[in-house]
């Protein structure tokens, strides 16, 4: 694709993304979402971010792998434990990187 075609594609994707983000902000006061939707609301970020993250931890090149050849799985466990114990963003991300470097050095 030419650079112009790519930028037009970005604009289309950006417009769609913006429309999604603006949707309920624009509709507020004009439309009441159904009650099942309200009930689903708190689960959305949890379900979406977990669905993006878990395959990154458990799969290597599309294959299930939780052995010593997959440091991401063990680093993920460390980060999850740190996040559960201290609920601190900086500490969680930093502990993940440090665990990754240590494992890389050991394995």
């Amino acid at each position, binding site marked *: 694709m030419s650079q112009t075609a790519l930028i037009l594609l970005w604009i289309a994707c950006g417009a769609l993304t913006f429309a999604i983000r603006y949707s309920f902000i624009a509709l507020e006061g004009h439309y009441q979402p159904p009650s099942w939707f309200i009930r689903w609301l708190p689960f959305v970020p949890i379900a979406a971010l977990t669905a*993006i993250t878990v395959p990154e931890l458990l799969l290597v090149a599309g294959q299930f792998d939780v052995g010593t050849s997959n440091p991401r799985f063990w680093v993920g466990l460390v980060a999850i434990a740190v996040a559960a114990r201290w609920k601190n963003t900086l500490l969680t991300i930093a502990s993940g990187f440090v665990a990754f*470097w240590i494992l890389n050095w050991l394995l």
Partner: protein
Amino acid sequence: MTPASAFLLGVRALLPMLLGVIPFGIIYGVVALASGIPPLAAVLMSSLVFAGSAQFLLAQLVGAGAPVLLAVGAVGLINLRHALYSASVAPVLHALPRRWKLLLAYLLTDEAYAAAIPHLLREPRSPFAHWILFGAGFALWAGWQLATLAGVLIGAQLPADLGLDFALPLTFIAIVVPLIDSRPRLIAALTAGATAVLLVAMPYKTGLFVAVLAGLVAGAFMQRRGSR
């Protein structure tokens, strides 16, 4: 609270996220160039689309020669979660002029939402609550633009074993784990994660969408059962 103090509160709440977002932005730059996207287009995507995991996916789909409509559809699917952030912040922004709503909708990302929402829930009636979201959104936007620019310019020279490509999962772990404070929420996460792994072979990330829906249904079902 003044507009300036609310803005700074949002910036400060977002800053820890940058430890994960900046490495991920650098990796995005590397992946975009490796997918055959010219440097200028790679940099422009960060302001025109402005959505980390969707930009990553879009770069890979373009590199794989996916049809244009499919690429747009995939970005829509992966960003659909933002509709629920939109619904969540809508009551706080209700009385604002339209220019504020447009600006804050553009800046509404996982990280900005996660950083700002605890403060918004604590100060829902503050006349400057929207400045908190603006501060968090702006800090993420600025960090993302600089990080992706750095990735395009110097990313290819960085050593591969820094683990920078692991930055997004680490950031999402830091956001999600503290949210899981009840059994229905745990069930939602486990169901979504397990489904995503099982359906990973489905074309163009469609399995991801099914996994999110499965997680929602499981979580809402467990909550209904628990409340009876």
